């Protein structure tokens, strides 16, 4: 039986009957007309540089003929090669004219060049096939992992991106014209947040404890403004039980706060 390596295909004497099965396998074994030609040349022990064109052409035609007789679909390339061979054969029969230009060379040259070229890559394909290959000649080594600590990587944020986002949203909300946001001192807003986190839980806190004297006059003013704003926004209760007595403050929502506390640990 035929082997796919091409060279060692079952020997089919050109003058003998070719069994149909063998022919099918045989055709599959060839990668095209050049491959078939190489096979024929090797089988005849010819030197590729000194091909007996008429002998090779004759054998080639016999194969083509046999294939066609079996009504196998034959790739057009095989027929083109048949025509090429016929042409070379006829040109070699003609005496070469001296008057022809200097480029006149052995008419076999182009065929030989192509055969050699093809043979190189046919060999190269075999070489590549014999390289040590993953999953056939070796396997990549991998080890399992113990449970990895989950490391979450946070995206970086540029202040400019943040401001651009704000600008976009303010534009949409048309807040530039009302200046609603702009009027407020941010330090007051920050202090409002700070006071609110101080007021976690139900307990009242003395009004004084909101102030820190180390902050100086400005700090006191900011805290005072923040307190007023919180009162205005109804976020805190300010209680004075006795006239001139101590003032107490507590978050308006303190009695519902217990669950929120876990989320918002003051930093």
């Amino acid at each position, binding site marked *: 039986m035929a082997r796919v390596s091409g060279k060692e295909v079952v020997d089919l004497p050109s003058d003998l009957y070719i069994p149909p099965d063998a022919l099918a396998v045989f055709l599959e074994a060839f990668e095209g007309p050049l491959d078939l030609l190489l096979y024929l040349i090797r089988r005849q022990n010819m030197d590729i540089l000194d091909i007996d064109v008429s002998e090779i052409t004759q054998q080639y035609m016999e194969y083509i003929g046999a294939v066609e007789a079996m009504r196998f679909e034959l790739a057009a390339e095989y027929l083109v090669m048949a025509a090429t061979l016929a042409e070379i054969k006829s040109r070699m029969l003609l005496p070469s004219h001296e008057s022809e230009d200097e480029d006149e060379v052995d008419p076999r040259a182009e065929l030989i060049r192509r055969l050699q070229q093809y043979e190189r890559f046919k060999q190269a394909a075999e070489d590549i096939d014999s390289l040590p290959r993953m999953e056939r000649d070796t396997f990549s080594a991998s*080890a399992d*992992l113990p449970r990895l600590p989950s490391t979450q990587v946070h995206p970086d944020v540029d202040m400019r991106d943040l401001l651009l986002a704000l600008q976009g949203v303010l534009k949409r909300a048309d807040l530039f014209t009302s200046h609603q946001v702009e009027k407020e001192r*941010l330090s007051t807003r920050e202090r409002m947040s700070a006071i609110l986190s101080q007021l976690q839980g139900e307990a009242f806190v003395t009004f004084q404890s909101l102030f820190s004297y180390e902050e100086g006059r400005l700090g006191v003013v900011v805290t005072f403004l923040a307190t007023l704003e919180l009162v205005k926004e109804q976020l805190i209760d300010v209680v004075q039980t006795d006239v001139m007595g101590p003032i107490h403050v507590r978050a308006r929502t303190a009695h519902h706060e217990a669950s929120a506390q876990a989320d918002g640990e003051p930093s």
Partner: protein
Amino acid sequence: MSEEQLEKIRMIVEAALLAAGKPLSLDEIRSVFTEDERPARKDMEHVMVLLEKACLGRGFELVKVASGYRLQVREEFTPWVSRLFEEKPQKYSRALLETLALIAYRQPITRGEIEEVRGVAVSSNIIRTLVEREWVRIVGHRDVPGRPAMYATTRKFLDYFNLSGLDQLPPLSEIRDLEEIGREIEKNIQSSAQTIH
């Protein structure tokens, strides 16, 4: 069995475990040997002990799990190895940045108030992401129906942006000039995108 034979079997077992990439039972390991060379279970167990010892001073160790033996990376090296699998952080969405900006400038603010300004709903994911990153926290609840949480920024937020206080945030009046900056950035992004192609 000779020392030498055991060594060779140990190498084959190591190769098999590293190629399998999953635990192999003792019998599965034995099945890589042809019948006439297959070690007895007792010998195989001995080989496993040899292999375990051979993994001292290496990056991996032999571990016995329910379905058999496996080679795994030594736990002590996971801090390094896990960096191989760190996913590149995705960029934050525009919606998240807008929400963050509003919390920064308008704190304390409820989700409803953010939605009012933005004109669209704020997904819980966004709030969760900001809270998980510890840039935003709940500082109280507004005393209105539903008692919505009020959000404020944290010290971590300030630290990240190198601010000593919120008053260091650019005033809103400057933000209008940002239009200029914005165009610049867009232009840069576009030109760098072009060089990539």
